[in-house]
């Protein structure tokens, strides 16, 4: 076969070049966000101070510097918080993208479908009724949230067989979310003072007060799950054409769909367990990513959406802790302010697109 003249390399590489550009941009933004997050706070530090502290930590093994106040703030407070925001932000955005692939609809996300609220409910119940017997390690919280996510996901899937329109399914998801929140509220009523403080604090959603233990747990769960999601990108692309075509290309639909749901639930459960429910990131960030890439190819979108989710959450967390300092906003407040308009715009443009 002659592979010469007819092959048009530009049209194939155009997408990849754009991808490289977007990745470069997101990496740059991420580095800026990381630095700013480390610098800004109740104790301001210059970039050079931050860098020299990190340098010392990495390359001089003398333990003397560790006692410094700045170093404690940097390594015990800011750095774990920042890394958690990175990993969980990326995880949430990938989780949303998986759900969107599953429903073949960009308006699906763990928060709007009530999945985050389901996770919150089970974590809440666990915190109140089982906390005395169990030590609430990040791992057990993630497990509880995963069970909650799966419960609601199963419910939503059951409804989705009856309900053909995605809009209606969203309404169902939002209602399920309210029911879960109501159940959570009821359990709070019966909780002891100490538990309420913990639960309220957690259920508002925040990256604050998190240590290295949480970062480790998040990394251990999310990074393999995101990698696994990336490995599903090939069938995800074919699935976008519809079940019939996907089947005709040799995809085993049942295991594939199950894998999508499990991964998506695991990722969003991890976020909810460690930082509380965070709204709109799962829809807004993948949408922004697709728009930047001008493509929905999962192999491109998943890595970019992970980075973009990290940047988005770092940015939102920065705003959450600085705008009204020393009072902190909860993270969902900030993500809603930025995420919800994106979702509204997206729904409006989709309407126009489908009618026009």
């Amino acid at each position: 076969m002659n592979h010469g003249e007819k092959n048009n390399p530009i049209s194939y590489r155009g997408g990849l070049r754009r991808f490289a550009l977007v990745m470069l941009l997101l990496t740059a933004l991420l580095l800026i966000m990381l630095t700013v997050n480390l610098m800004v706070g109740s104790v301001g530090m210059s970039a050079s101070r931050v860098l020299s502290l990190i340098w010392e930590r990495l390359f001089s093994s003398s333990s003397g510097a560790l006692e410094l106040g700045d170093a404690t703030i940097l390594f015990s407070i800011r750095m774990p918080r920042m890394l958690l925001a990175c990993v969980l932000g990326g995880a949430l955005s990938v989780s949303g993208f998986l759900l969107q692939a599953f429903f073949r609809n960009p308006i699906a996300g763990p928060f709007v479908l009530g999945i985050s609220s389901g996770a919150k409910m089970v974590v809440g119940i666990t915190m109140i009724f089982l906390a005395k017997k169990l030590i609430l390690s990040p791992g057990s919280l993630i497990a509880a949230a995963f069970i909650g996510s799966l419960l609601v996901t199963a419910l939503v899937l059951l409804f989705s067989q009856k309900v053909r329109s995605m809009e209606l399914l969203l309404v169902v998801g939002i209602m399920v979310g309210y029911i879960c929140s109501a159940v959570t509220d009821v359990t709070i009523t019966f909780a002891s003072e100490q538990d309420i403080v913990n639960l309220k604090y957690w259920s508002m959603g925040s990256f604050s007060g998190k240590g290295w233990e949480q970062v480790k747990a998040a990394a251990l769960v999310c990074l393999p799950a995101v990698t696994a999601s990336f490995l599903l990108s090939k069938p995800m692309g074919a699935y976008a054409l519809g079940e019939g075509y996907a089947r005709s290309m040799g995809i085993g639909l049942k295991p594939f769909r199950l894998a999508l749901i499990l991964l998506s639930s695991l990722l969003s459960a991890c976020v909810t367990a460690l930082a509380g429910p965070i709204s709109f990131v799962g829809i807004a960030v993948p949408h922004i990513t697709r728009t930047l890439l001008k493509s929905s190819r999962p192999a491109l979108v998943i890595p970019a959406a992970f980075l973009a989710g990290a940047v988005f959450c770092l940015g939102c967390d920065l705003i959450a802790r600085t705008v009204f300092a020393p009072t902190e906003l909860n993270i969902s407040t900030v993500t809603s302010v930025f995420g919800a308009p994106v979702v509204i715009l997206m729904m409006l443009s989709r309407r126009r697109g489908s009618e026009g």
Partner: protein
Amino acid sequence: MKRFFETSSLSVGYNGKALIEDIDIALGRGRILTLIGPNGSGKSTILKTVSHQIARIRGAAALGGSDLFAMSPKELAKKQAVVLTDRTRPELYSAREVVSLGRYPYTNMIGRLTAEDRFIVDSCLELMNASSFAEKDFSTLSDGQKQRIIIARALAQQPELLVLDEPTAFLDIKHKLELLSLLRTLAREKGLSVIMSLHEIDLALKASDLILCVKDERIAAFGMPDEALSAVSISELYDLEKGSFDPAFGSLELESAAGKPKAFVVAGAGLGVPVFRRLQRQSIPFASGILFENDVDALAAKNLASSWVITPAFEPMSEVGYEKALELMLRCESVIDAGTPIGAFNKPNERLLGIAREKGLINGKYD
């Protein structure tokens, strides 16, 4: 004919209930089989069963010598590609990306396209005349362009058997013809076998090697186009009441005006057809004569006129025919001369026109 695809006592249906039973068809490599029949007759059910979209009820099928239903999805994907009637609307996929998905069974774990894959995608786009809009977002294309992309995707899968459910839907005449000639070319040159359903009976008869007529959830006929049509007429197959299908022209005719003929058309040599059509549009029942057997006008008159006089071709028109035509003509209000030249064999028509002129029947009433 070597059998490339074959079914034996195949029953198809939904949810374990057989809809069509005992389908026995065979298709050679490089042959085109077209399913025709009214909506809801079960054409799609057969196609969906053949393409593993739904489970078969009973029976067997073989593709290239191996059991079709025992094949793994991956194996099948390299042998068979489909064009479904499902509306597919991937968002933010360029047309080229959709076609590239056809390479799915051949690419590596993350679906990277090799130079050869890209070459195949490009040539399939070209085959479907779709290179000009390959970079556009699929969702912004017209229905016809989308259909061409979906077909290009199926071709990029490089199947041995192509299964298409109503592939001509949404295509305009140009692209309908181009698609069917492309399928013929691919069948002849690449040995591609095709099973499809079509609504255009005329094109189906012309483009297919084999025809399967499905009616009321059973197989009404199977065979080469003329064989199949001698077993079941199109009017029967589709329950045509308002109109008819002419296998000779391969054309559908609207219902002719019923009742006592009001006009008589002296015609022949194809000059009558436009007159017939005009009268039919105006719902004026008419008769025509004297026509030679198998003259275009004679074929058309059988579909459109309420009565006609036809005599054997290649010999002078008989006196019997003349008498019959005269009687028929005199019962009409008006006579129309289609302008057919008079020669040695059709002199009686000249006599008819002469009498009509004398009796003032050439009065232009229905001209």
